[in-house]
């Protein structure tokens, strides 16, 4: 991806494909393998390859973008026997994980989406629950700093 490409200023419209690609990109390899244990016939357009991606962030999610760090990403592109093209970008170095994500992306554009969607929804719910639990644990140890009245004002 072109690193000079800026993030859009406004939130883009709802995009289901973007959502499932995002979900798979952040998923764990063994969890995604439970969604689709056996891959259907497919050909590789781009064999799985590992590289670095510069992750950008914004101060308070609205400020100017800045580079946080590079992260390791594996990508893969496949074409199903019906001709549907799928792309998979996942965190980490697992080639089979990237390949499975690409196949699922292609299948989600075909009739197989009906069976895959509930499983991806379940995976999303698990991920959301894990995030919430972690945030709750962190919140319990949160310390609030505030300034008491200081001597010179009295």
């Amino acid at each position, binding site marked *: 991806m*072109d690193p000079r490409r800026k993030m859009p200023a406004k939130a883009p419209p709802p995009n289901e494909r973007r959502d499932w690609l995002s979900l798979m990109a952040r998923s764990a390899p063994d969890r995604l393998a439970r969604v689709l244990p056996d891959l259907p016939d497919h*050909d590789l*357009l*781009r*064999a799985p*390859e590992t590289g670095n991606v510069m992750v950008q962030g914004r101060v308070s999610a609205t400020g100017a973008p800045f580079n946080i760090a590079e992260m390791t990403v594996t990508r893969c*592109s496949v*074409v199903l026997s019906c*001709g549907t*093209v799928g792309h998979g970008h996942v965190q980490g170095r697992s080639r089979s994980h990237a390949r499975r994500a690409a196949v699922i992306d292609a299948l989600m554009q075909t009739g197989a989406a009906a069976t895959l969607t509930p499983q991806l929804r379940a995976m999303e719910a698990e991920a959301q629950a894990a995030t919430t639990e972690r945030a709750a644990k962190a919140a319990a140890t949160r310390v609030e700093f505030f300034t008491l009245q200081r001597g010179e004002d009295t």
Partner: protein
Amino acid sequence: MTALTGGFADPAIQSAQGFRVLMQAMARPGTIHDLALAVPPAPLGRAAGTVALLLADPTTPLHLAQGHDAIRDWLAFHAGCPLVGPDRAALALGRWDDLLPLDRFAIGLPDYPDRSATLIVALDRLEAQGARLTGPGIRDQVSLSLPDIAPFRANRALFPMGLDFILTCGDRIACLPRSTVVEDA
């Protein structure tokens, strides 16, 4: 199958192999080499497609001559190069007639002659007969079937500025850098 198939199966190895052939061809102007590592969609020849994948990346603006719209997606997927007009192109790809006139392309500046375009030309025939080539990298002389003589002579007159040519036909390539002197046979 889709129009995206036919890229390098093993990019690291095949890029190195292909680049070696391309360098050798550019170092020995007018010699014909086999180079067919990629299988691009029609109408692009295998050699032209391979050269495009070897040279094009997101930092090299490419001008795609008319008649090659079918390979836009293929180039975008495998090379990721921006497609631009001829005046801003670092690379140009197309048939000889579609690339003319050549004065649309950047020839570099006197102090930066490297800021020029490299033309990947698809030809119908490429044989070791025809125009006489002499110059750096050529012992005595070589012959090469060129589509025309005058544009290459005019290009040589611009030296050290000018365009470099990678002539392709099917699976074969021959290079014609700006330093080569072209004469009638």
